[in-house]
């Protein structure tokens, strides 16, 4: 049974996920505002997979330099370079392709458009092959979709990406910026396409930041849909599945 699920390795999150984890092979959108800990959550998922569940993973960076990510994550005591050497973890940097472009439509760089999806999928396949990955993180998937100025095109591109991901049989976390914070927020089309959505929401109460972890959707699993408080501590993300969020 447990083999049908990929445990996040974050005790509180796994409890919310019915003491099981994320259904294996599913594409899960991790959406959160800036500083909400999306990357931390995703890296923790990969780190725990590699160290505790014998599931190698790949991290595909579309924005940040993987070296920066590794450095940032070392504060949680996760030695990612070592895992990389042991071939339990691979970092794929597709961010440099962006800089080759010169043409712009508004803020969106058009130069990557024609090869991005193919290039991305190729890179992912290679990465999966290299470490025999069972977990994949794309951070942030929004970067990929935003290059398509037309929304319909964007949705298609995203659907293609997700469809292709399914073939890998990996458990995939797609990191996305969350637009709108607090209780009201916009639903993003990625949410409809993904099989699961985990929100790392933040709200301001007076001048205090309140963090909420919420599994909004998780196809094929009974989950607790209520927002629960979470914290980013020196051990990574800690979710408190039995607590109510106070404002």
């Amino acid at each position, binding site marked *: 049974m447990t083999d049908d699920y990929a445990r996040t390795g974050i005790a509180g999150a796994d409890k919310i996920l019915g003491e099981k984890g994320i259904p294996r092979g599913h594409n899960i959108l991790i959406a959160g505002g800036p500083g909400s800990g999306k990357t931390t959550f995703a890296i923790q998922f990969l780190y725990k997979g590699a160290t505790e569940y014998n599931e190698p993973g790949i991290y595909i960076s579309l924005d940040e330099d993987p070296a920066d990510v590794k450095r940032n994550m070392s504060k949680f005591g996760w030695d990612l370079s070592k895992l990389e050497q042991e071939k339990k973890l691979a970092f794929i940097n597709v961010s440099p392709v962006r800089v080759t472009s010169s043409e712009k439509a508004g803020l969106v760089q058009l130069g990557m458009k024609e090869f991005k999806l193919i290039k991305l999928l190729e890179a992912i396949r290679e990465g999966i092959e290299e470490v025999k990955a069972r977990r994949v993180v794309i951070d942030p998937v929004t970067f990929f979709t935003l290059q398509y100025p037309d929304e319909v095109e964007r949705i298609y591109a995203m659907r293609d990406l997700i469809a292709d991901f399914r073939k890998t049989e990996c458990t995939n976390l797609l990191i996305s910026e969350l637009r709108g914070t607090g209780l009201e927020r916009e639903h993003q089309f990625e949410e409809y396409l993904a099989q699961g959505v985990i929100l790392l929401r933040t709200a301001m*109460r*007076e001048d*205090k930041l*309140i*963090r909420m972890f919420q599994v909004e959707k998780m196809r094929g699993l009974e989950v607790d849909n209520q927002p629960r*408080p979470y*914290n980013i501590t020196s051990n990574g993300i*800690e979710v*408190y599945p*039995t*607590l*109510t*969020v*106070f*404002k």
Partner: protein
Amino acid sequence: MEKLGLSLAEIQEIPGDSLTLVIGPPGAGKSAFCHQVVLNSIAENRPVIFITTEQSPSGVVRLLTEKGVEGAKSEALNFIDAFSQTVGIEALDRPDTICADCADLNSISMATTRLQEIIGQKGVLLAFDSLTSPYLFSGAEVAKFMRLFLSKIAAEGNSVVALMDEGCGKSEDLVAMMSIADGVIRMETEENRQLFNVVKHPKLRPTRVEVLIESKVRIRAATHFDPSVMKRFAKSMLENREGGAEAVGGSLRSIPLFSSVSVDELSGLSRQFARRRYRNGEIIFHKGDVGSTFHIINTGGVKLSIPSDEEGDVFLTDLGPGDFFGELALLDERPRSATATAKDSTETLALERQDFLDFVKLHPDVAVSILAVLSQRIRNLNSQLKSVVLFKPQARLAQTLLKLVGTHGSEVQEGWQISIPLTQPELAEMVRVSTGTIRRLLRDFREAGIVSMEGQRYLIHKPEELRRMATLGDSPD
């Protein structure tokens, strides 16, 4: 000391599986009350989670120990520091202290949950001092916090006590908080007394307890403690499950001195008491002896007196069941100040100095009771001294007989019968004259028709004449 309905000790016991809210205006003594509850818990080796929003953990520890840092090392005491971060000072206190932000209820609930996991056992005391600060930041959300978090902690098998100032927020919020709590104690200070109004309680009937203001000081005084004392007592409590000790505990229960001490603690204490039996007339200790035993009379009676070569013994006082003696030498470690003699077949419960001091440190109520009795004894001595200095033996005998009429007199045809038998030496002691003098005085009284005697029974014929003689204020001859 009289027990007024509930004792303070009973109120200080926060029942398990319940959330008690202590409310009152600032300065009513809520924190001191909370500290006492915490100390009681530590004494029982029961883990405490202390959420402090009003001062740093080290400040609380200082108040709890005052004399040193031993308390800070108590393993049972765990802090959530919701003060330092909020006011922007660095929390340097203890490495194991978990920090939270009192402006963010989530950080408090998360910190508490983490600490619970670390402690890993139920039956914890959660003390929240106080909800006022979070209320200032979060308003009515605090009521929700009580309902959804503190009540949940209580329901998991823990005791929760939370403090809240009255008058700092909307009254409907306070009412909401009171209705959420399983127990509500409203504290007030009024002139020389402190009022504990038990508005509701999961186990006790609503009641009101008044404590003289000294006891407010006393509660603070109780915050000096030595964990080794606590440990010893906790140990003795755990060990004490035997019948013999229980029986002594039963005797202790009836002693007013211990009315504020819980049955459990008494059975713990009873283990340290030794039963001592004395024959009628047997000397328990002599004036000048080096002694370190404190006695409580269980059955029989004891006479305290000071021997004097010239006029026979100077009688100090008679004590009966429930009375105690021997406390002076215990306190100042000097030789006995008086001789104690069993007046009957007497049994005392004797406690050694160190156990006595340890117990009194733990039970300030008892210390205050002892002080009250000591004060009464000093007053009695003063009035006896005054009587000896100011009045002739004749006047003193008249006063003594009048007193006896007042306490043991019953009206009969010929006058007033004193119902207790008194020997002449006993009467001599009470009047502080020699037996020779008393024999002469009684003869004079009899000849004047004031008194008649039949064996050891005295009949007062002319109380008005005694009254006149009693006020003769000439210096003694």
